[in-house]
């Protein structure tokens, strides 16, 4: 008995404990709600996120100390890799909360569940990043996914939102099945679910157990679904379009990063010996993901749907870096995901502000003339779009630069070429919005006046934080690269 207790290091899960407490607190607040409480859910959850953030950064020791803490019999790992991802998640969550508050007020849906679910999803993501063991990973993934299913259908009076939630749920549970089946197969062929033990077992007994390979294939499918990689991306456009705009922002940043976090940990730490096996599969998936995402995005008029396809394409870029592996590759994954969090949530913040009650204004034509009516919003939007397109001096450019240089360095020149061509294609549809904002007249002046964008202080703060992130990642990449490299070393 003493042994069991000695491996429990509670301090390793303080951030998760804090977030759990806050989400329970919000549920209790909602249970005993008075109308006055409505205002506070957002702030309470924000405090929770900040507290968790403080613990991630400071605890158990400083970020650069390279400490790796194992807890719960190796079921739980806290290393710099996990810390960096938790940083991304909490950042995404914080920004989402900021852009949500006014939105919910306008939609008259200020319920505590919204924020509680966001926090639950965040806890799930953090569990995925820290999971040292496949069942723990599954728990985190399920916690995240279940919360997201509900959030996607949060605006339940809207049909598209319902549709999104249901599709997401059905397809998502299908993918979860694959994950469990994969875990089971791996357990069957190695006798363990601990990622490190799997690695040891694979290294020791060789590779060609069919059960192991099948299990790995199942995991690829499951993670591919969660990260929306082609051909497991079918849910993305419908769900992103139907979900409320802040939730789309949330889903495109954190959960995607979480899927990559788990993907990379399982495959880099658990199955590196099988790298030869999955290289070509990932190669094909990366090329398909980039190309199909960008090509379909070209013809979208709905800006949320366009960004959904663009997020598929971005997952493809990340997959290129993932494939390149090595120090530069994984650093680029981290760098890009951080950048992507800033730029995508930034763009969605503007979309949220502009969409109007019930989100009628989400088409490219609704952005015509924005540059003259709302110069600030237009400048910020252009910045985020430039970054998404990968134009210097933004973080998006630096991120792509690192990804493609990693790919070239590891010899994936063909993939790098496909990636660059895709970036060029993507410029077209991002700039289309900018062109609409600056070079086209509003289709109808009255219509434009009728739906004035809503800029609450919280939303403006979120835009500023995102813009700062995008610019500083683009202008001063080296300090971020230092942190990112520390995080990579943790995975070694």
């Amino acid at each position, binding site marked *: *008995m003493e042994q069991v207790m000695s491996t429990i290091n509670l301090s390793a899960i303080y951030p998760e404990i804090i977030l*759990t407490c806050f989400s329970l607190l919000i*549920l*209790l607040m*909602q*249970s*005993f709600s008075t109308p006055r409480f409505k205002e506070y859910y957002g702030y309470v959850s924000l405090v929770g996120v900040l507290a968790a953030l403080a613990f991630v950064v400071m605890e158990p020791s400083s970020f650069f100390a390279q400490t790796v803490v194992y807890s719960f019999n190796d079921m739980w790992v806290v290393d710099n890799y996990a810390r960096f991802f938790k940083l991304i998640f909490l950042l995404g969550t914080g920004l989402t909360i900021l852009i949500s508050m006014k939105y919910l007020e306008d939609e008259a849906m200020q319920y505590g569940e919204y924020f509680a679910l966001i926090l639950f999803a965040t806890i799930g993501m953090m569990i995925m990043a820290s999971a040292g063991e496949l069942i723990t990973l599954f728990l985190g993934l399920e916690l995240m996914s279940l919360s997201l299913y509900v959030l996607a259908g949060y605006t339940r009076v809207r049909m598209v939102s319902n549709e999104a939630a249901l599709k997401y749920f059905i397809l998502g549970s299908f993918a979860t099945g694959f994950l469990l089946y994969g875990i089971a197969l791996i357990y069957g062929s190695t006798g363990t679910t601990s990622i490190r033990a799997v690695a040891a077992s694979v290294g020791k007994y060789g590779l060609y157990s069919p059960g192991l390979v099948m299990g790995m294939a199942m995991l690829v499918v499951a993670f591919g679904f969660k990260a929306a990689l082609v051909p497991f991306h079918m849910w993305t456009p419908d769900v992103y379009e139907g979900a409320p705009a802040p939730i789309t922002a949330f889903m495109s940043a954190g959960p995607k990063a979480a899927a990559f976090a788990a993907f990379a940990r399982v495959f880099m730490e658990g199955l590196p010996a099988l790298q030869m096996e999955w290289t070509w599969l990932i190669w094909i998936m990366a090329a398909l993901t980039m190309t199909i995402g960008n090509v379909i995005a070209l013809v979208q008029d709905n800006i949320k749907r366009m960004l959904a396809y663009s997020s598929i394409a971005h997952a493809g870029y990340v997959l290129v870096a993932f494939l390149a592996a090595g120090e530069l590759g994984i650093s680029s994954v981290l760098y890009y995901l951080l950048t992507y969090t800033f730029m995508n949530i930034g763009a969605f913040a503007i979309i949220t502000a502009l969409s109007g009650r019930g989100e009628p204004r989400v088409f490219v034509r609704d952005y015509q003339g924005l540059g003259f009516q709302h110069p600030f919003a237009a400048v910020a939007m252009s910045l985020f779009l430039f970054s998404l397109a990968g134009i210097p001096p933004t973080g998006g450019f630096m991120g792509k630069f690192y990804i493609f240089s990693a790919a070239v360095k590891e010899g994936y020149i063909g993939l790098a070429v496909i990636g660059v061509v895709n970036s060029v294609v993507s410029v077209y549809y991002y700039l289309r919005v900018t062109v609409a904002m600056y070079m086209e007249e509003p289709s109808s002046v009255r219509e434009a006046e009728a739906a004035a964008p809503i800029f609450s202080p919280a939303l403006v703060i979120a835009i500023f934080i995102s813009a700062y992130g995008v610019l500083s990642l683009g202008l001063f990449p080296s300090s971020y690269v230092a942190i990112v490299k520390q995080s990579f070393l943790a995975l070694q």
Partner: protein
Amino acid sequence: MSEYIHVLIMLVLAAATAGGMLVATSLIGPKKSFIDKMEPFECGESPIVSPKLRFSVKFYLVALFFVIFDIEAVYAYPWAVLFKELGLFGFIEMMIFLTILAIGLIYVWRRGALEWDR
């Protein structure tokens, strides 16, 4: 191999018992067939209905709550068995678990999900 011989004997015995019962009833039992009896058994539901028939979603809600709180009991069993060995640590852990569950219950209650007519 010898240690498994008991299991084998057990298996054979069980199969024989079950098989014997089936054979015995079909041989000696009375057979009176009528229409209702020949229908597949469906937990009291009528097996053949119009697909347009709707159930109130409340049924499912209650069922869900039942499953959730049922699982609570499942967790409580192993804890109860090992209660003495786990000691205070186990007790506190379990109380935390139950507290979280209780918060869930409070939430469900206060939100009115347990009331049939709302």
